C-alpha cells in the first residue's frame, strides 16, 4: 500500500467516524408557533414606535404627523397583543384540560 492510499483510507475513516458516530440524545427544537411569530411582530412594531418617537424628538416630524403615525402603529400593536392574549388563553385552557384528563386516568 502506498502512502497516498493509506492517507486516503485514514481521511475516509475519520470522516465516517465524525459523520455517523452520534452518542447521546439529539433535539432539533420545537417548530415555530404562531405565538412566537406574533412576539416577533410585536417587537418589530415596538421598534417602529421607538423609531417614530426618536424622529419626533429629533424634530423631523411635525406634531400632527407624529400623532397620526403613532395612532396607526398603536392600533397595529393592539391587534397583535389581542391575538397573542387569545392564543395564550387557548394554550392555558388546553393545558388545564389535558391535566384534568390525566387526573381522571
Amino acid at each position, binding site marked *: 500500500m502506498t502512502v497516498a492510499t493509506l492517507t486516503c483510507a485514514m481521511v475516509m475513516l475519520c470522516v465516517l467516524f465524525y459523520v455517523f458516530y452520534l452518542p447521546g440524545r439529539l433535539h432539533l427544537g420545537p417548530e415555530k408557533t404562531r405565538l412566537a411569530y406574533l412576539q416577533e411582530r410585536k417587537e418589530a412594531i415596538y*421598534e417602529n414606535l421607538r*423609531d417614530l418617537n426618536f424622529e419626533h424628538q429629533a424634530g423631523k416630524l411635525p406634531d*400632527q404627523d407624529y400623532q397620526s403615525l*403613532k395612532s396607526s402603529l398603536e392600533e397595529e400593536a393592539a391587534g397583535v397583543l389581542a391575538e397573542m392574549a387569545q392564543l395564550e388563553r387557548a394554550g392555558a385552557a388546553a393545558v388545564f384540560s389535558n391535566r384534568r384528563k390525566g387526573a381522571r386516568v
Partner: protein
Amino acid sequence: MSQIGSFALLLALALSTYSFLAGILALARPGPGSERLGETARRAGIATFAVVFLAAFILVISAFQDNFSIAYIFHHSNRDLPAPYKFATLWSGQEGSLPFWSLLLSAYGLVLRLRHKTDARLFAYASAIIAAVQIFFLLLLNFAAHPFALMQGELPADGAGLNPLLQYPEMVIHPPMLYLGYVGFTVPFAFALGALIMRYPGEKWIHITRRWTMVTWAFLTCGVFLGAHWAYSVLGWGGYWGWDPVENASLMPWLTGTAFLHSVMMQEKRGMLKMWNMWLIFATFWLAILGTFLTRSGIISSVHAFAQSSIGGWFKWFLVLTLVTFTFFFFKNKSHLRSEHKLESLISRESSFLFNNLLLLLACFTVLWGTWFPLISEYVQGNKVTVGPPFYNNVAIPVALLLLLLTAVGPLLAWRKTSVESLKRNFMWPALGAIAVGILMMVFGVRPWKDISYFYALMAAMLAALVGLTVTSEFIRGGRVIARHTGQNLLASMVHLFHRNTRRYGGYIVHFGVAVVIIGILGTPFNQDKEKEMGFGDKMTIGPYTLVCESYTQDDNPNYSNEWAIISVFRGDRKIETMYPERRFYKASQQPQTLPRIRSSYKEDLYLTYEGVNEATGRPIIKAHLNPLVMWIWVGVLIMIGGTVLALIPNAAPVRVTAPARIQAAPVGAGD
C-alpha cells in the same frame, strides 16, 4: 499528492450528496430517527469543508513544490514565480478557482451549520440547499474541470507561468474578495428558499441573514472596486471601468444585492415586499452564478475571463435548474408571501426604497442587456454587434444621479407618509447647501449648458453635497436628542447615537462613501491625455505638469526582462517627482505587460505609460493621462467598507426614557 487531492474531491462530492439527500429526507419525514438522520446530514456538510480544504491545500502545496506533473500547476506557475503569486495560483485559472469557489461555499456552510441551534429546522433547510449548490460545483470539479489532472508524456522542466496581468499584488486579494461576495449570496438565498419551502412564519430569517448579507455585500463591493483599481493600475489604458463583460458580471449581483439590502428593511419593519425580496435574493444568487458562467464558459471575450472551456453547458443546466426549482416553490407557496401592509403614500420611506429598487434593477437590466447583446445579435443576425461604453453611460449616469437623489432624500422621509411641512423642515438647509455648491462650481468654470457631461458633473456634485449634508444633519439631529437626555456634548452624543443603532448610522456612512465615490467619478469628463516619442531631455506638457525624459534603460531577471523610462515631473519650475513607466516581457508565458506609474493627489492623477519603442528611432513612446479626482473613488470605497463594518457592530442596549406612547414606554435611539 494528486491522488489524495482527487480522492478528497470525490469524497467531498459524496459527503455533499449525502448531506443534501439525508437532510431533505429528515425534513420531509419527521418522526423517530429523523433527528439523527438530520444530524448526520449536518455533520456531512461540516466534513465537506474539511475535505475540500484538504484538496485546495494540496493544490497550493503542489504550486510551492513546482509539481508540474499536475497540468494545472504547469499551466499557471513556474519555478521563478514569486511566492505570493504561487499562493494565488489557486484562483488564477479555471480548474483552480473552482475548488476555491467550493472551499468558500463549504466555509460559509461550516459557519451556518455550527450555528444551527439558532433555529434548527430553518438552518437544516438552508444547509440542504447549500449542499445542493455544493454538489454542482463538486460535479464540475470531478468530471469537467479536474484540478488534479496529470500531464501526459515527459514531465516539463518548468511551468508555463502565470498570466502577467495577474502578477500584481492586488490580484492576490481581488479574486478572493469577489468570490467571497459571489459565493456569500448563496447563504441568504438558501435561507430565503428554505423559509419559502417551509412557509416559515415571520421575518426572522431576514434577521438571521442580515449580517451574512452585509458581509457578503462588503466583500463584493471590495471585489468590484479592487477589480477597477487593478484595471486602472495594470491595464494601462488610463481608466478604471470599461464596461467589460466580466466587470459587468460582477456589477449585476452587486446592484441586485444592494436593492435587496434596502428593500428587505421594508419586510422587517412593515411586512411588505415579501415576494419582491424573494425574487431579489434569487436574482442576486442567480446573477452571481451567471457571472461565474460568463467568466468561465468562453462565450464572451474579456481581459478578465478564463480561457474557453467546456463547462458552459454545465452552468446552463444549473442556471435552468435553479430557476425552475425556485419558480416552482414560489408559485406553490406564493400565498405565504402576502404583504401585511400597503404603500400609504408616494412620499414615504417605503416609496423611496421602492424607487431605489426600481432604479437599481433598471441599471442591472441595462448592464445585462448590454453584456448579452453581442451574443443575441450574433444569434439573430449572424454577426456580433458589440455594445460600447456610450450605451451604458446613457442609462447608468442618469440612473446614478437619481439614486444619489434618493440616497439623500430617503433617510429624511418618515415611514408610511411624509407631509409637506415635514419635507420643508428636513430639506431646506441641505438643499440650500447643495445649491450653493452648484453655484460655486459654475463660478469655477463648470458650465452645464456647454456640454452634457458638464451638466452631469454639476448635478453629481450638487447631489453628492446633498447626501453629505443630509447625513450630517441626521447625525446632528440625533446627537442633540441624546445630548438632551444624557447631558453629553454633541460629539460624544453622536458617537453614543451611532452605538444605539449601528445599522442605521453605519448605513449613513456607507451613503456618504457613495457620495465621495460619485465625486471621484464626476472628474471623468475632464480627463486629458497626450502621447509623445521622448528622447533624452525631450519635454511634454499636460495640465500643470511638465514631463522631461531623463533616460531610458532596460534590465533582465529570471522571471522577466523589462525596459522603462526615467521621467522627471515638474510643476512650474519645481521638480516634484521622478516616475518610471515600465514595460515587461515575461519569459515563461512569453507575454508582454505595460506597468503604468501613477502620481495621485486629491486633485488629480498623473498617469504615465511606456507604450513601447519606435523601431526607427529607438526612442520610447510615453503616454500621459491627467485624470482629475480619481483618488476620491478609492477613498469613497474605503468609507463605504468602513461604514459596512461599523454597521455590523451590535447595538448598545437602549436607555429607557419616558415616552408618550400608550402601549409601552419606548426607549430612545433604536429602529431603522
